């Protein structure tokens, strides 16, 4: 693998001042400290609260999801064979729920080619409860931890390598639908691969893991968790990288470039030509000396 053969260079040196390392260190300490205080007691109560959470989840499920997915998440078939009002949720795991509900895709506002991302209908606690309930139906992928998709703990070189590798995996597995810039693309019959801009690493990880809607799975046996992490790191890095070349015109490739060549280029220059050939103002006076 020539890919891993790297000698020099760090990622995005331009974004760091000399004090940046210190700031990051202090920030890291602060965050991990506060996270610990916030989470430690919760973990202690974990066992006891789990059943409550599942019960709360079931309640929410019956109210908001059961109409399409069935009272027990078994799915609701329609009259036409093989089509479903809502698919079975048995075995989809907490990750699928966290993704679908956490990004607002579910509950679906109206049936359509695809569930669009929209305003989230539940608060974090409710999402967690729903996820816990669905996870209790049958084992499935769990919600990933932050450590699964962050590059924390890697050395500078390892990070750069991870990002480069993530880029190559992204270009092989993801750009076909989501475009080279993560701007999204069209799929058959009105479907689309959504834009990946600004999507949290957690949701990308979950989407890869569970294959929401028509997206194929990239289960851990397919794309290892490290590889998923690398893809997420790459996506983060291209969003952090300055646009060296100017405004990206939507990052859609030659179609938007062609549009700008005509509108700005030809439009502007034809405007210039009109000005050049237009008549200048005339005076009523006549030249006396001549």
């Amino acid at each position, binding site marked *: 693998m020539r890919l891993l053969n790297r000698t020099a260079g760090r990622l995005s040196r331009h974004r760091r001042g000399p004090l940046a390392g210190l700031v990051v260190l202090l920030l890291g300490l602060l965050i991990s400290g506060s996270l610990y205080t916030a989470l430690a007691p919760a973990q202690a109560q974990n066992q006891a609260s789990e059943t409550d959470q599942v019960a709360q989840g079931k309640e929410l499920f019956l109210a908001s999801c059961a109409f399409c997915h069935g009272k027990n998440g078994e799915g609701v078939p329609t009259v036409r064979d093989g089509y479903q009002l809502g698919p079975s949720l048995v075995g989809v795991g907490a990750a699928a729920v966290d993704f679908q509900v956490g990004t607002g895709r579910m509950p679906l506002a109206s049936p359509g080619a695809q569930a669009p991302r929209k305003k989230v209908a539940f608060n974090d606690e409710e999402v967690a409860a729903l996820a816990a309930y669905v996870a209790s139906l049958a084992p499935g992928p769990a919600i990933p931890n932050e450590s699964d998709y962050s590059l924390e703990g890697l050395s500078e070189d390892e990070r750069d390598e991870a990002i480069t590798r993530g880029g190559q995996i992204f*270009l092989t597995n993801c750009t076909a639908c989501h475009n080279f810039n993560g701007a999204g693309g069209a*799929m058959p019959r009105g479907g689309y691969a959504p834009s990946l801009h600004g999507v949290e690493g957690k949701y990308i990880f979950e989407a890869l893991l569970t294959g929401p809607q028509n997206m194929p799975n990239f289960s851990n046996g397919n794309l290892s968790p490290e590889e998923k992490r690398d893809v997420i790191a790459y996506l983060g890095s291209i969003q952090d990288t300055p646009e*060296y070349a*100017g405004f990206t015109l939507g990052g859609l490739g030659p179609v938007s470039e062609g549009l700008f060549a005509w509108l700005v280029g*030809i439009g502007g*220059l034809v405007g210039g030509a009109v000005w*050049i*050939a237009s008549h200048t103002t005339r005076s009523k006076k006549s030249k006396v000396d001549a």
Partner: protein
Amino acid sequence: MSTDSRLDTSKIATTNGTSAATTSKPGAAGSLATWADDRLGLAAAMKKNLRKVFPDHWSFMLGEIALWSFVVLLLTGVFLTLWFNPSMGHVTYEGSYDQLRGVGMSESMSSTLHISFDVRGGLLMRQMHHWAAMIFVASMMVHLLRVAFTGAYRKPRELNWVIGCVLLLLGTLEGFTGYSLPDDLLSGTGVRAADGFLKATPVAGAYMSFLLFGGEFPGESIIPRLYIIHVLLIPGILLALIAAHMLLLVYHKHTQWPGPGRTEQNVVGYPMLPVYAAKAGGFFFMVFGVIALMGGLLSINPVWKFGPYDPTKVTAGSQPDWYMGWPDGLLRIMPTGWESVIFGYTISWNVMLPILIVPPLMLVVLMLLPFLEGWITGDKRDHHLLQRPRNAPTRTAVMVALMTFYGLAWAAGGNDIIAIKLHASINQITYFMRVAIFLGPILAFWITRRWCISLQRHDNDKLLHGYETGIITRSPDGAYAERHLPISESAAYTLTARDRDEVFHAGGDTDAAGVAAPNSRSERVRARLSSWMYSNNVQKPTRAELEAAHHHAEHEAELTSGLDHPVDGHQFDDHRLRDTDEVPLRDH
């Protein structure tokens, strides 16, 4: 003796100014000119051309955009060659772009990244080169449209039209070879599609592909080969043809719009030196400036995001540059399964039709347009006065139909982008385009022709009855009418400064000896086409009709003022009368 003082402007030009252009005493420029003329004898040629007259109109500068963007292409292109390495040799990228460091790629991709990230101004020059290329082809196209819509391609300029069409083809090929050079994922996908196009050629397709790629796709030869085609072969031919295009322009002298004092026999405008040279030179800087601004502000072809070409990768939105978009669109809307196997040999209609048959056919049709028109009309005169598009309704409609075909195919080439931006289904867009590509041009032809003819009627109305003043008058019995006033003499002259269309009649003509011309088959076809082309057109009024109309208007005014009959709102024009068939002014 300076060239200036030998230049007798009175013979070649007159002016509408109060004084002739003044000549000055031989100065420094004069003595330099003398020095040069002693050795080169240029004065004989220069004396006429230095003050050669060019008419002034914005639409005459569209070709200049192409010329100047070509100059920008040469300048920026030379800059890029200083670093670009057109080799497919494999290297590991170790340059400054972090996300690709350590990735294996070809030297051409690596040197493109080097130009983009490690050469100051390199990215600017790359982007300027690419924007200039897009503008180059686009401006050739708008220039072509201007020439076609105004009938400037008629005799004696047919050959220059053909040269222009060849330039458009070469510019397109130059663009394709150019954007393929960085060997990035997007351009490589395009090259692979081109390989598929070659392979679809009957009999020799696979061999053509292997010869071009130096073996099986992708090989290691294609980039160096495209490079030499891109930097030497095509630019050389382009330069030669541009020179020929401009020489013919100077020889024929530019066409002009008809108007007072502007006839088929003269050309009215500003002299090359100084005004035209200044305007053209200034426009060069403007074109250059706009391209520089675009290069600095708008990202184009971010190859670092595509990554190096890898035959197993692809990105959504894999489109060619805009000028290759319409054949790509035709490819996309081909119905499923158009491939036949005859005697065990495969014929790929699904690729041949949209790539190998229709685009070359379109180019041939385009090139033949002036000859076809000349044959149908039988017009052997030289034409230097332009026609307004409305005054050649059939030609205008044909061009609009061709544009509609082009535009629909072009839009089909971006069907996936349209689908995501408009939340539509690519399948539905494709189904729509499959029908629209046939119906659209027909509809466009029909609408345009009717529209043109209506505008011709409107022109005649203005000539005969004056223009609508917007002044509403009320008659004593309460009727309202808009007052029409005659248009100015020069405006009226300009409206009438066009030829009457003459429908060709087969066999009807007799020669000088009174013998009927042979009524051959082609004559009959020609007659039918001529009638199709002209018979619905509205002809300008004759002098007698004009006088009658003006006289009639005066008379009508008198009548209404005398309340001879009820005022019906048309006392200043004759619309009431024209609705009957009494007035023979409108349709010929």
